[in-house]
């Protein structure tokens, strides 16, 4: 079946940060802008976007049942209605032959192929009904791998005949959502959003392995997953506020918390991750309506507020050939772009004064240095984040700053004190603490890792197990009562008159 494009629309909105065209201390010009392009079909529900050659981008319209194409050269769109009523395209990918594949969650679930040259759609139904297919991943041999999120399967469409095979994950109802190749495409990494685990699938032996987080890592609803060039696996926590690093060789986890939005959700809810050529991780914080970028080498996370009213959301974002970050905004019906060189004018670093080891319930001191790269004095708001709680919410008891705001001279810096006190009940592990410095529409989070040694505290144990303790007291009291009843049964005396 051949479908013609129904629209060619040029409609661009450009919004800039408050610190756009600023000059940093090294004299480098930064042009920090988020460009937003509105999709021609209203309420189309753009859900996922991929980058294609020649500054072209493909995206799915979840609510409108269309496949979209965006031409960045002239900011114009083409749309292709999917030839099935009420189709629900969720995500997409492009194979090495230039064909666009997308998942369709309508009905029992299917995978579609769209050939841009012929504009022909081909549908492949999943053998398992109600499979809710989501993420797709073509390999170098043009096989298409995909997840069946409610059928608990990893699926494969084998090139060239596209025979469909399903591989069931070991944990039942694990909720496989996103997938990524490990090094050399020998392994597929999978986030199990219901199980809160990370799975790997060996493409040679067709066997699964699973990684469960230790007690100090929550891993709530993991969704996004990418592998870096060192073989580390990066996962986004959609039910929390963190990007989490897994080192598979020793099964260690590290948490990189975002700032926590001050709204009804209290989590940033990162859905998906993209990794650029420098190893930096880009993501959209759904409930914070920000674009975030984590540089694992410097340990600095930057966040850029998205200038739209609806919280930005997408299940797949893209990086173009220049490294610019592209994302869809489901609610605002837009496609957004952040330039690769976007940066906050602030730098935040944390220096732990007494080393990085602390016992739970004890306090260590830190020095926080905030640097202003602008050529004008600014006032910076300070906040905290950490992995002490699953949501990232951090109390002033856990991290106490000397001040909640600081004035910085042009090109100057300021150092303030911080006292870090992990909860007395925290189990041993590597925790992260972050100081969020915000100026206008961007933030910089300086991160530090501390090794917390959980120690047994009787009071802490009582506090965390008070119900058990009280139930034990109830049992003792009940036994005491029964014993007293037996001892003091009515002492009946016979009295003769």
């Amino acid at each position, binding site marked *: 079946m051949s479908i013609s494009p129904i629209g060619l629309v040029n409609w661009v909105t450009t919004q800039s940060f408050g610190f756009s065209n600023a000059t940093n201390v090294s004299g480098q010009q930064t042009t920090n802008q988020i460009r937003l392009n509105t999709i021609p079909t209203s309420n189309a529900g753009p859900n996922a976007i991929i980058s294609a050659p020649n500054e072209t981008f493909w995206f799915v319209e979840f609510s409108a049942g269309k496949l979209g194409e965006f031409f960045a050269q002239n900011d114009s769109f083409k749309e292709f209605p999917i030839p099935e009523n009420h189709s629900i395209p*969720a995500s997409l990918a492009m194979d090495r032959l230039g064909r666009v594949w997308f998942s369709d969650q309508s009905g029992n679930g299917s995978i579609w192929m769209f050939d841009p040259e012929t504009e022909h759609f081909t549908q492949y139904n999943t053998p398992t009904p109600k499979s809710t297919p989501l993420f797709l991943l073509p390999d170098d041999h043009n096989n298409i791998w995909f997840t069946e999120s*409610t059928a608990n399967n990893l699926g494969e469409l084998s090139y060239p005949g596209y025979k469909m095979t399903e591989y069931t994950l070991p944990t039942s109802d694990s909720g496989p959502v996103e997938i990524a190749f490990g090094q050399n495409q020998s392994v597929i990494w999978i986030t199990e959003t219901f199980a809160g685990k990370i799975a790997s699938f060996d493409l040679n032996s067709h066997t699964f392995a699973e990684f469960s987080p230790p007690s100090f890592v929550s891993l709530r609803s993991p969704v996004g997953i990418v592998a870096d060039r060192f073989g580390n696996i990066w996962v986004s926590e*959609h039910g929390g506020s963190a990007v989490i690093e897994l080192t598979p060789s020793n099964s260690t986890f590290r948490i990189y918390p975002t700032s926590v939005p001050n709204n009804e959700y209290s989590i940033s809810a990162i859905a998906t991750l993209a990794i650029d050529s420098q190893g930096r991780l880009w993501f959209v914080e759904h409930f914070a309506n920000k674009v975030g970028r984590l540089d694992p080498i410097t340990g600095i996370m930057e966040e850029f507020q998205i200038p739209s009213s609806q919280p930005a959301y997408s*299940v797949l974002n893209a990086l173009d050939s220049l490294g610019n970050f592209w994302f869809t905004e489901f609610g605002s019906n837009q496609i957004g772009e952040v330039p690769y060189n976007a940066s906050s004018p602030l730098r935040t670093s944390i220096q732990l004064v007494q080393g990085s080891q602390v016992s739970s319930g004890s306090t260590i001191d830190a020095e926080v240095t905030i640097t202003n790269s602008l050529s004008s004095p600014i006032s910076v708001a300070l906040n905290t984040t950490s992995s002490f709680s699953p949501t990232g919410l951090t109390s002033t008891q856990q991290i106490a700053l000397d001040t909640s705001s600081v004035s910085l001279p042009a090109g100057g810096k300021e150092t303030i004190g911080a006292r870090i006190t992990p909860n007395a009940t925290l189990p041993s592990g590597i925790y992260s603490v972050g100081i969020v410095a915000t100026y206008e529409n961007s933030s910089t989070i300086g991160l530090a890792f501390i090794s917390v040694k959980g120690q047994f505290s009787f009071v802490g144990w009582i506090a965390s197990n008070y*119900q058990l303790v009280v139930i034990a007291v109830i049992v003792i009291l009940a036994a005491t*009562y029964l014993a*007293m009843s037996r001892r*003091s049964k009515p002492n009946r*005396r*016979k009295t003769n008159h």
Partner: protein
Amino acid sequence: MKERYSLRLKIPLQTRSLVSLITASLSFWVLFNRVTSEFFSVQLQISFLKVVAKCPGLPYGSTSGGPDYIDIAVDLGLAVVAAVFIALTIRDIRRRRNAGTVEDSENQESDDL
């Protein structure tokens, strides 16, 4: 032949009443805490599922799990313990009052004599 309670029953009855009252109160307190925390936990789970539902394309909640029978059993046990000890407390208070009435009447009789 006349049966009457000995005088030394008065002090154990007070102690027993106190013990049963504390037991009932603690049971009720733990039960209340558990029920409220379970309620808020369910509310949190519902709000979380609503949050997830705002994320189109992602699966909506897990179908795994089911009723937590151990927690339900603990809650029921606590409710039974609280009810039994409330009843025992009331019974002991009544007995103590009756014992007091008997003692008073005995004292009255001895005064009359």
